[in-house]
């Protein structure tokens, strides 16, 4: 009943967001100064002939009207076809699929470590002023320090000085440890900050007094009652964290010279390789929509009061 309406509306919004992201990239492509054909033909230094440029324009459909180009673009998108990279002359889809796994590994590991540490710290320090104060200082540092700097410092300390971990590259878990830590720190900090604040707010609400008056122990009060109350704000935070993770992946892949979507994107931006940029944008939008769908579903699962009105 409510749920079907909710799911339909969510789906509709998701499609709208993905379409909007794709259209934004298309508009960006049109606004791009200079001739894309020139980029494809190897750039201005290659001095391609007029005829070559015409041929490229015909192949890529740049000679058609904007509307035709847009509709072709959307039509291909529906089939999952992002076109070919200007620089690598490969289908964007295969570039993305070959790079996504490495980035996903990095992001998921960082997020999980960060979330676990954050929740543990919040549970241990909420409602204990001294511990909370100390934790808050560390958390502020963690969220205020740029990821690439943490990465650089960790690198020089553990790889160059102590030789504990490989300096760069994509091989195995040992090459992931430092990037994971770098990525996990701000996640842990922000999770713990938000969660503790929420727990401390729940702690002074009347229901906490009622629960205590039932003879419930402090640890049960925390685990069975308060923990659930921290879920809505942590969920809100989690969709923000997904965005932050993406930014983190981009810079960390750069710092640790790892392959992945971030490297691909930065190279594409530097080379104005718009099909690749579009591909990454749409891919990220899809991930974002999926994450938000799950997050919104979890809100309803956690807080029964929200189930009344369909979102």
């Amino acid at each position, binding site marked *: 009943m409510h749920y079907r309406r909710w799911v339909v509306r969510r789906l509709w919004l998701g499609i709208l967001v993905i379409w909007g992201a794709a259209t934004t990239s298309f508009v960006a492509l049109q606004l791009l100064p200079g001739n894309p054909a020139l980029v494809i033909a190897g750039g201005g230094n290659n001095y391609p002939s007029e005829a070559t440029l015409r041929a490229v324009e015909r192949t890529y459909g740049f000679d058609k009207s904007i509307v035709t180009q847009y509709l072709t673009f959307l039509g291909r998108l529906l089939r999952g076809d992002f076109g070919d990279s200007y620089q690598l002359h490969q289908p964007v889809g295969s570039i993305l699929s070959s790079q996504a796994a490495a980035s996903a590994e990095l992001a998921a590991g960082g997020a999980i470590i960060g979330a676990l540490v954050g929740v543990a710290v919040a549970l241990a320090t909420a409602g204990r002023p001294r511990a909370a104060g100390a934790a808050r200082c560390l958390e502020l540092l963690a969220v205020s320090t740029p990821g690439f700097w943490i990465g650089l410092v960790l690198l020089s300390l553990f790889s160059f000085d102590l030789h504990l971990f490989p300096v760069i590259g994509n091989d195995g878990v040992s090459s992931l440890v430092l990037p994971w830590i770098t990525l996990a720190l701000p996640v842990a900090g922000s999770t713990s900050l938000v969660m503790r604040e929420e727990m401390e707010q729940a702690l002074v*609400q*009347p*229901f906490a*007094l*009622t*629960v*205590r*008056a*039932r*003879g*419930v*122990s402090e640890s*049960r009060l925390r685990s069975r*009652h308060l923990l*659930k*109350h921290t879920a809505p704000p942590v969920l809100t935070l989690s969709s923000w964290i997904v965005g932050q993770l993406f930014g983190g992946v981009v810079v960390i892949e750069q710092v640790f010279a790892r392959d992945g979507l971030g490297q691909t994107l930065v190279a594409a931006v530097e080379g104005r390789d718009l099909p690749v940029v579009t591909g990454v944008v749409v891919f990220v939008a899809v991930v974002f929509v999926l994450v938000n769908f799950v997050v919104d579903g979890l809100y309803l699962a*956690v*807080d*029964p*009061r929200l189930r*009344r*009105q369909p979102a």
Partner: protein
Amino acid sequence: MTLIQESPAVLDPGTTSRLLEVDGLSVRFPAGRGTAPVHAVREVSLTVDSGECLAIVGESGSGKSVTARSLVGLAGDTAQVTASTLEFEGQDLGRLSRTAWRRLRGARIGFVLQDALTSLDPLRRVGDEVGEALLVHRSLRGEGLAKAARDELRAVGIPDPEVRARQYPHELSGGLRQRALIASAIVAGPSLVIADEPTTALDVTVQAQVLDLLAAKKAAGTAVLLISHDIAVVARLADRVAVMYAGLIVEEGPTDEILSRPAHPYTADLLAAVPAFGRSGAAVAAGTRPGGLLAPPSTGPGCPYAGRCALADDRCRSELPPPVPQAAGRSARCWHAGEYALEAATPEDSPARPGVAATRPVLEAREISKRFRSPGGSWRAAVDRVSFTVHAGEALGVVGESGSGKTTTADIVLGMLDPDAGEVRLDDTPWSGVSERERRPRRSRIQIVHQDALSSFDPRYSVEQIIGEALGRTSRRGAAAVRDQIVALLRQVGLDHGDLQRRGASLSGGQRQRVAIARAIAPGPEVLVCDEPVSALDVSVQAQILDLFTRLQRDLGVALLFISHDLGVIHQICDRVLVMKDGAVVESGPVEQLFSTPQHDYTRALISALPGVTPGG
């Protein structure tokens, strides 16, 4: 010291035993960040026997809730609790370890707070909440626990416990929710239930059901320590009453005795301030006594009430009276106990109600209706063909419980909401169904005083700006230009120029309501709509604000449309009254007639909920 006499539900004397004994209980809160140290509870002594109900009565800040909480060891981390005796079931509570406290709470002492919507965990199912004490104290699990929780829900009179146990607190009505909260407190069979304002947020008819439930538990042998500000609630349930003021128990004794013959001047003043049947406007005159009831308690060594007491002398100001035993098992902390008679009040000063003259109608509602869409998608009539007329200078009361449509009626009458059908006329000109542009210049004719005055003030505005806006000066400088006018308005409502620069948040409840009234009368309206304007106030403050309304009605000739859930308040203020239920008017007529010969069952139920009135008239 305290014998139970004439109490309605005394068990066989052989089985009564001393359950709780408290002597010399003090609770202090040391100075914190930006707060002064507070001595919240001073030298409180009380006893509760099994199967009896002791009520602690007092206004906000009297220390009654802190007393209750310190009896379950939950006065707060910063509280310093001391007592010469603190015994429950022969156990010395002062020496309990944390674990021992936990074994006591919920198992031997149940604790019920007001407003189950916030006092039950909103994210857990009702059944889980009710069963939690059994899980903790009896180690029940699984189906056995679920069944015990359902049984308890049934025992407190909740229909369909199988369904309700799986629901969440917000899905239950206020009355059922409060029962579920009580069930969660008594499920493990405690011998004492402490109920802190258990009925405060509820409608009177629901209130009666919840009190009946507590009375049934009491009859079954459970002792009840009732904390309340509401004399009507106390009169229904309590065998004995302890009146608290400024952290002290100023008077204690059997309920009937205290309510009919108060020995302490504070108790007498408190009772006099309660608007109720049999004591109409003229006698409710707390403000006419020297000092009134409302100044803060005196500091210093003497009686805290000395600053406001008609009988106070030098001894009262220098020496705190001990509890002095009185007749019939009573005691009072007063050097002049029993000397103070209620009749000492001089009614001349209090405002007489203006007579009802047959004057021209200023506000007419003709068959107005309004429907709203409920979350389920169906339509619900919030207001159903309601008609009434307010004449110039008269006071028309509208009484009803939550959901009766009285606030929607107010919104329609104010032109904030257009009715689906029917018409509102102001000064015999159409008022509903016209454009906002047409309505705006005439809005000064009808003004409102809300229940929640603070929310009706822009948090950034000073008192001067709040009232300035009502005089058409929306800027700070504009308001300063009409300062004389603003000060005159403040004087009219009992404030002065010293309050001009204050913000709403720094005012007390009564002061906020005065500012709201000043703003409402500033444009010189003919009709003042008052939507529950005194419901959130302590009874003594309430009495003063009601006086103020009556004076303004007399002095300014403004008509009142007075909305309240409290027939006592309506009785004191109004000439005629409409009784609303489920969006419709079920009964109307002159107030006296309504009280003497109520026609509708619902009216009778409302009247029976008033203090000092026996049901079944």
